[in-house]
């Protein structure tokens, strides 16, 4: 192991530039450790986000040597090329400063995709029984572990081409709710995720699935939404979808 790591870090906003730092190499060092070292020991003005450090909160995603990754669970050993790391904010989102991307549009799209659970029962009702081996439950299970890190959104070509596109994470969320048998918002949600800005814009490039740190397949969820919306469009009254 060489003793120093050459790190190029994005500084400033959209018109910023990379700044070079030298960071000591350590065993089992993560990319987040590198960023934290720079802020604590070299330049305290460096802006970046993190919270849990253990892959739960989804706040530390950045572009590492050209690929979006969760930095807290990305070991330097795996990604440094000849002792060099290049760190930038997530793509497809506006830059606030340094390594901080503005996540508003990303989460607004969750709301636009009907990402909110619509209850059909009250607290007076008995707890809903959902069989763990039922098909909807298994479909929801396969997609439910999203931590909202934005890696898939930054990796998606369609987001780059079509700014209105809801993106893999929001559509994946919509798919989990479409499979929640307790939810009452299914029809409105399928309306919200159909069409040019929704699931039908997906090209099945599978970048989201390739990059998802949780090993989810938003591509699969989006394919499920395509089938569900198609059935809804063929079944429902024309004015519902005009």
């Amino acid at each position, binding site marked *: 192991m060489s003793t120093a790591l050459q790190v190029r870090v994005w500084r400033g906003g959209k018109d910023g530039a990379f700044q070079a730092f030298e960071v000591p190499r350590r065993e089992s060092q993560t990319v987040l450790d590198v960023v934290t070292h720079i802020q604590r020991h070299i330049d305290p003005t460096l802006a970046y986000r993190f919270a849990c450090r253990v892959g739960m909160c989804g706040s530390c995603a950045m572009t590492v040597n050209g690929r979006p990754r969760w930095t807290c669970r990305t070991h330097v050993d795996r990604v440094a090329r000849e002792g060099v790391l290049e760190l930038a904010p997530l793509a497809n989102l506006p830059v606030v400063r340094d390594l901080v991307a503005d996540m508003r549009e990303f989460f607004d799209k969750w709301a636009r995709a009907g990402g909110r659970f619509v209850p059909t029962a009250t607290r007076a009702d008995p707890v809903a029984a959902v069989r763990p081996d039922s098909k909807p439950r298994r479909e929801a299970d396969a997609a439910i572990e999203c931590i909202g890190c934005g890696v898939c959104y930054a990796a998606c070509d369609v987001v780059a081409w079509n700014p209105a596109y809801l993106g893999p994470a929001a559509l994946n969320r919509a798919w989990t709710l479409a499979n929640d048998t307790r939810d009452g918002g299914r029809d409105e949600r399928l309306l919200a995720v*159909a*069409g040019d800005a929704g699931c039908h814009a997906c090209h099945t490039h599978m970048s989201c699935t390739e990059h998802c740190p949780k090993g989810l397949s938003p591509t699969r969820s989006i394919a499920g939404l*395509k089938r569900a919306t198609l059935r809804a*469009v063929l079944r429902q009254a024309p004015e519902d979808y005009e």
Partner: protein
Amino acid sequence: MSLRREVRLWLAQRVTAAVLAACVLVHLATIIYAVRGGLSASEILGRTRGDFAWATFYAVFVLAAAVHGAIGLRNILAEWAGWRGGGAEVAMTVFAVFLALLGLRAVAAVFGGGA
């Protein structure tokens, strides 16, 4: 652009893709057969002229290609050139009709011998 229409265009592109996959296979097999057998153009035309089965097959092929191509080009223009809305819809409809007419003219030629 209504959602219903958007979803129907998506479905039309998938259905025509499936049709095209079959048509292309038959078309390629026919080409290879004709070339290997050493058939001349006039011999080929002798077989296609007046044959309703070939005319129907190639008419379906042409129409599927016109629909599939126009929807695909519409998507490319929207995503890569940012051209969306009424103008693009009209242009792509014209493009689909143009492709269909060109193709059907060729079908008419191999079926009837005119054009």
